[in-house]
């Protein structure tokens, strides 16, 4: 298996507050990793350190053999485009319609021409079931539709990995399913994914590996069937007893 992201002794502090204490793990190509754990355990911070939206305090992030924490701004921009990210609050650009949201990065970053970018954007919209909404503005979409557009937008850059930061937490319950379905399709198509989530059902069904985070450490790494039936650490047992 090819290593895609290597995390070595990652630490992140905000002043006195040590959010990430010492994390070393590896994401392999084609893997779907679900990061679970109690609120405030540093899951989101960890994910945002992976594409250096948060600058780590110490340690290394190595992506495709290059150390992200130690490259030029320009090189970092180029590596970032290969790490798509989907946010809890969608973060669609309200000043552009749906298809323009998707076209922006390919046109401005990759220099794809307008018609090519539009063709690709419409294909991606079809994939997430939203070709009808191409010309609408984000504010007229439902939460579930917004998140599917956000996924299509991330996919438009042909990323090597997709990072999901609690993608269903801000959704009404009846919309969670449509987003998870899109994510499951992606996983089945072989996309490498790191998903911070509270959806234990999704983790159980789709993940190759579950990383359990608590108190600034990754306490347990296990296959889902093992993690959900026989967690090794006490902290994980306690967590699962509350959420399941």
């Amino acid at each position, binding site marked *: 298996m090819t290593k895609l992201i290597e995390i070595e002794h990652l630490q992140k502090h905000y002043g006195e507050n040590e959010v990430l204490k010492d994390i070393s793990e590896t994401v392999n190509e084609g893997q779907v990793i679900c990061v679970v754990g109690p609120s405030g355990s540093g899951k989101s911070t960890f994910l945002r350190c992976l594409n250096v939206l948060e600058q780590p305090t110490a340690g290394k992030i190595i992506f495709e053999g290059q150390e992200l924490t130690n490259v030029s701004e*320009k090189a970092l921009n180029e590596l970032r485009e290969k790490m798509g990210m989907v946010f809890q609050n969608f973060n669609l650009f309200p000043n552009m319609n749906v298809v323009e949201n998707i076209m*922006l990065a390919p046109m401005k970053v990759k220099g794809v021409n307008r018609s090519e970018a539009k063709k690709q954007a419409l294909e991606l919209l079809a994939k997430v079931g939203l070709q009808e909404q191409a010309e609408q*503005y984000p504010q007229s979409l439902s939460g579930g539709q917004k998140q599917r557009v956000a996924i299509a937008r991330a996919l438009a850059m042909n990323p090597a990995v997709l990072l999901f930061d609690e993608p269903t937490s801000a959704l009404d319950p009846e919309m969670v399913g449509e987003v998870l379905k899109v994510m499951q399709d992606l996983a089945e198509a072989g996309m490498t994914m790191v998903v911070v989530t509270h959806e234990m059902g999704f983790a159980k069904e789709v993940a190759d590996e579950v990383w359990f985070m608590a108190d600034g450490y990754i306490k347990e790494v296990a296959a889902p069937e093992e993690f959900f039936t026989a967690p090794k650490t006490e902290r994980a047992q306690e967590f699962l007893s509350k959420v399941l």
Partner: protein
Amino acid sequence: MQNIKKILFSIILVITMFMLPAHHVMADDNSNVNNTNDTSVKDIKEKGTLVVGVSADYPPYEFTAKVGDKTKYVGMDIDIARKIADDLGVKLELKNMDFDSLLVALETHKIDGVISAINPTPERRKNVDFTELYYSGKQVILVNEADRDKYQTKADFNGQTIGAQTGSLLYDLVKEQMPKAKVKGLAKLNNLVIALQTGKVQGVAMDQPTAEAYAVNNKGLVIMDPKFKVDADQTGYAMAFAKGSDALVDAANKSISEIKEQNLITNDYIPKASKYMKTTTEDNDLIDYWSYFLKGIEYTLLITAISVVIGFILGTLLALMRLSDNKIAHAISVAYIEFIRGTPLMVQVMFVYFGIGAVVQSLPALVAGIIATSLNSGAYIAEIIRSGIDSIEKGQTEAARSLGLTKNQTYRYVVIPQALKNIWPALGNEFITLIKESSIVSIIGVTDLMYQTQLVQSATYKGVAPLFVTMIIYFIMTFSLSKVLGHFERKMNHD
């Protein structure tokens, strides 16, 4: 923050201190070499023009008259200046400004000379050189006819308020010789006369010929003689030149003695001035002055439009500097914004014209006015833009950066367009403010709407009516702009 402000303040103080004395020193140097090598006349002849500053609101000495469709500066002082220019063989160019600003403009070499019914007092002699006296007038007080019996002597004004032009001899006379009366100082004589007519002041001290002009043109105003004690230097009028220009003073003196010999003032200049005053009074329907207002509107819109564009570019730059990680850029931007917002626009306008203008001699008042208003609005627009950028969620930037967009692309395609929409109303407000506040540039003689209004006031001897017209014009301009901005705001919200 405190430190930055302190440092900046000291820097500006030091610059100012260096700049002003520098001229005195230069002038003194000139006067030392002067006897052998005074180039003042030669310079004027090479230039081909004699630029003379006047405060054209003091009939019959200097005032404006409408000749056909054009405004002309006329009066006996103007005729004297023209004679001096003719005798030098150069063209006369007149610059109209507030009386207070005249000697400053002369000291900073914005103009070559000043003629404006100036008394050569000892204080003034310290800073400028004067010609021989060319005329001596008497000082009187203009009062309302209804009060004619009430005010017979100086003592009758005890506890009352008397108006006088700031910076004038009259102001000092009232202050010194009528200690029990209050003095109200305004820059423009027109406004003082309005104050008298509306009962804000009980009398206005002025020169006899001027007072006669006002009395003739305004029914209900009469003259009283307070019998001021004055010496010749105080009652007489002389023309002023920059310190050390002895040759120029000599040349002017020669023309003045010719004027005296031929009695030109009483025989020619004053009768001519009276004629202009009379035609002006006969022909003072406000509608005839529409071209004055039109010119004023043109300049006001021009100044506003250019200042808006420059202010917007400068403001964007300052906002980005303030938000940047670069500590120096951040500090410069913060210091600039705080300093500009913490000082009055009026002071900034005068500082640019007289301060920077002292270094860049050929800086026209219009350009100085535009520079000052642009620099000023830049600071306010910077804060508006910064608040707009701050109002955009962090998630927007993160989403853009995670797609590989650079910092600049993120600003350009994602943050700025959204910020612009959020700040549109505030920005519109700033533009409207700018239309109104640009009226300040009238103090340095830019012919904007406010300045033109003052011209109409002095030309028609009407105080309130031109102000009312101007108020309506300003309102029409700001109201139309706010309608246009509202239209764009609605259009943006459709998206």
